[in-house]
């Protein structure tokens, strides 16, 4: 059984008269341990898709199942509970709490899991080492760089070992060095911890780190590419070709 299964999801905004359909019946499955990228031009609905998949936004029609849980039927409180235990998030704007230190930010998802302090400390050490942020544990977000912030954000997403991690343009605000750094770390964690990752991006380079790329156009699934045994460079070339066909959007857009 696949980890995530979305069937015929529709999403529209506005009232009866100003209705605008953003998602027009998308079917999607993600297997456990996969690293999936969702690509598309601005306004294609890729962020909306990620939001409904991750239960932050509600679908207008269709169903989404993650693990054994049908999330479209759940109430807000139950959804929050579900997110707490099963989902992890990485956002473009880092979304760190300014009032907390790096370590406190990372440990945040554990505090509800009633994990002992000792075990939490161990978890923290592991993930901080993997992401190379042990040295900045005591610093506040305003005192560290963008790349460090995003790695902190990633550590927070991974620490409670969620079923799936959603990443929304995680490299969008980073320079190319920090971006490839982060993507390498993500793909390491993907293989090492068998973490499932769904990432929205408009950057083909970022997408080339994943194992499968899904293209969205005008609210519908356009096509998808599997990396298979190709090298990353070849996969990148494939992605860029498809993107060109898709609408002449170039990777530096």
């Amino acid at each position, binding site marked *: 059984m696949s980890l995530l299964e979305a069937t015929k999801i529709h999403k529209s905004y506005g009232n009866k008269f100003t209705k605008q359909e953003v998602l027009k019946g998308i079917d999607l499955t993600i297997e456990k341990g996969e690293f999936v990228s969702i690509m598309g031009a601005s306004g294609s609905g890729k962020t909306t898709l990620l939001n409904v998949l991750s239960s932050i936004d509600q679908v207008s029609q269709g169903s989404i199942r993650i693990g054994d849980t049908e999330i479209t039927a759940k109430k807000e409180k139950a959804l929050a509970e579900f997110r707490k235990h099963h989902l992890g998030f990485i956002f473009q704007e880092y979304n*760190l709490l300014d009032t907390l230190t790096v370590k406190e930010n990372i440990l945040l998802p554990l505090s509800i899991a009633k994990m002992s302090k000792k075990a939490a400390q161990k978890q923290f050490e592991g993930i901080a080492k993997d992401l190379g942020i042990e040295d900045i544990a005591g610093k506040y977000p305003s005192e560290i760089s963008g790349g460090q912030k995003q790695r902190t954000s990633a550590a927070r997403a991974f620490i409670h070992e969620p079923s799936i991690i959603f990443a929304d343009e995680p490299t969008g605000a980073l320079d190319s060095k920090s971006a490839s750094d982060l993507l390498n770390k993500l793909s390491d964690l993907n293989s090492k911890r068998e973490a499932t990752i769904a990432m929205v991006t408009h950057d083909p380079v970022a997408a080339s780190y994943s194992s499968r790329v899904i293209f969205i156009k005008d609210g519908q699934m356009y096509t998808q590419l599997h990396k298979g045994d190709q090298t990353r460079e070849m996969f990148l070339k494939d992605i860029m070709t498809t993107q060109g066909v898709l609408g002449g959007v170039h990777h530096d857009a």
Partner: protein
Amino acid sequence: MTLNQLIWKSLKKNLSNYYLYVFALIFSVALFFAFVTMNSSPDTGAAKETTTGSVGLTLASIVLTVIVTVFLLYANRIFIKRRSKEIGLFQLIGMTKRQVFRVLSMEHFLLYFGAMVVGIGFGFLTSRLLELVLLNVTGQEGLATLSFSMKALLQTILFFSVVYGLIMLSNALYIRKRNILDLFQVRSKSEGKRVSVIETIMGIFGLVLIGTGYYVSSIMFRGDMVRVELLFGIMLFILATVILGTYLFYKGSVSFLGNLIRKQKAGYLHVREVLSLSSILFRMKSNALMLTVITTVSALAISLLSLSYITYYSAEETAMQRVAGDFAFLEKAPADTFTAMLEENGIAYERNNIDIVKANINVKDIVQAEGDFNFNPDEMLATVISDEDVEIDVAPDETVFSGTNDLMSQIMSLKNTGEIAFEEVGTKQLTGTQDEYYVSNIFTSGGLPTAVVDQETFERLNENKDPELQWTSSLQVTVNMEDSSKVTEANKLFEELPEGELPQFSRIKQETDQKQSLGLTLFIIGFLGLTFLITSGCILYFKQMDESEDERSNYTILRKIGYTRNDLLQGIRLKQLFNFGIPLAVGLLHSYFAVKSGWFIFGTELWTPMLIVMGLYALFYSIFGVLSIQYYKKVIRESL
């Protein structure tokens, strides 16, 4: 789009966003205008003719001016901070700082003077209401005949124009000091600091300062320190130590303790702590200052209100001391006339004659504190009465003190039992002290105890009395109504009595007179206290609104991660408990010491009136806390 259109547009858009600022403006103007109108009204004119009245009013208007100015500047600061991004954007697209300032000033001008017109309208209505209250409190009959005062209008306009100038100055400084980048990042700046030794020392020093202030206040009115010329200096010293101590306490101790807890958690924070502890520590610098202001203002308000309520509350008690019965006379003749009048009108009464002798007694044995001023324990002039005239029984070699009051015992504390010696009849054993008043305090030099002795001793004293010590009258006739509801009726008859050679007293008249003469002072103090309460509540509420906006993105993150609104609200409640609770608790403590140091000058009862005031204050104050939680609720709901 021209600059003027821009001004108009941003004004329209901001009006709904910044209703808070508009509210602060209208509130201040209304308050100020009401006060000034009352001040210049002919009805209050009479009260102003007394020196204390006019000094009080002047003092009150100064305090009011300061508070309103601080309040408006603070509200403006929040207002401008929220718009810093907009200001930055204007500059980014090429407007000069001068132009930005012009846009802001124009916009402010319209907002400010618009609010002023509304405020003056409200103020006029409020002033009528206030005057009605004032007349009621002082027990004056008559309708409020307040008319719109031109003078008050001009004063209000003048004052608020000056404040407008100040606000513009502060805005100009704000814009000048910051570059575009600062303006964009104004919110995420960390005030967080790590634990340091200096902080700990600072916190301890703060506690020491507060302790010193408290100690000095408690000995301020002890005999050896009462020197009027020093009093003012001592009060300033107390004020300074306590305020500075409070600031250091907040800045040092609170963040020290907070950081200690945080360190102990080793980064593993519950969401409750995330929203309370870390948020408070993050803003400790600005919080410390604000908490100090709130604490000081609260303490001032509670003390003022307590003291004035103590006075009011004690009026009855004071009247009781002044007049030993419902009515008291110092000669037989007018008492006879009065009782005859009562009989004529069919009012049942009880008449009681008490003979009085003044004698020196030696109380050296029972004096508790040494060094009290102007008082010689070897020769205390006491009023002596016989136990047969009052309904207690005293053995021949004993005596009982009656009519002691708290003020006297504060200044001159005597033990309840011990040996005292009369010059004429020798040593007696003091067996107890009562607070009942058998003798009006015109006999007792303002509250010295009255000694009750047995009849035989009294007769011996009376025979050997020293004529030098005796007062004009040595007889007191008290007339008490059997039915207490007839007192008012009897008082009407009393008023018809011709004036005698010696004073004659009516307790109920004393009480109303007392309340009337205190009325104005009470009213001013009450008004100021209320202003302080509302102002401090508003400042806290504004600050919380501001913080909640700053933290909106945090709530978004936390909710995305999977915390429910309830989880977040728990943390918010904790934070508000701190933000509102700590200054309230410290303020209550401060005012307790302030009131305790000098309450006996104002009245005879301490606990009941003080606790009533404190309870009410805490209640009204908590309303602002609840309001701010409601606001947070809204922000949290909208955050996802």
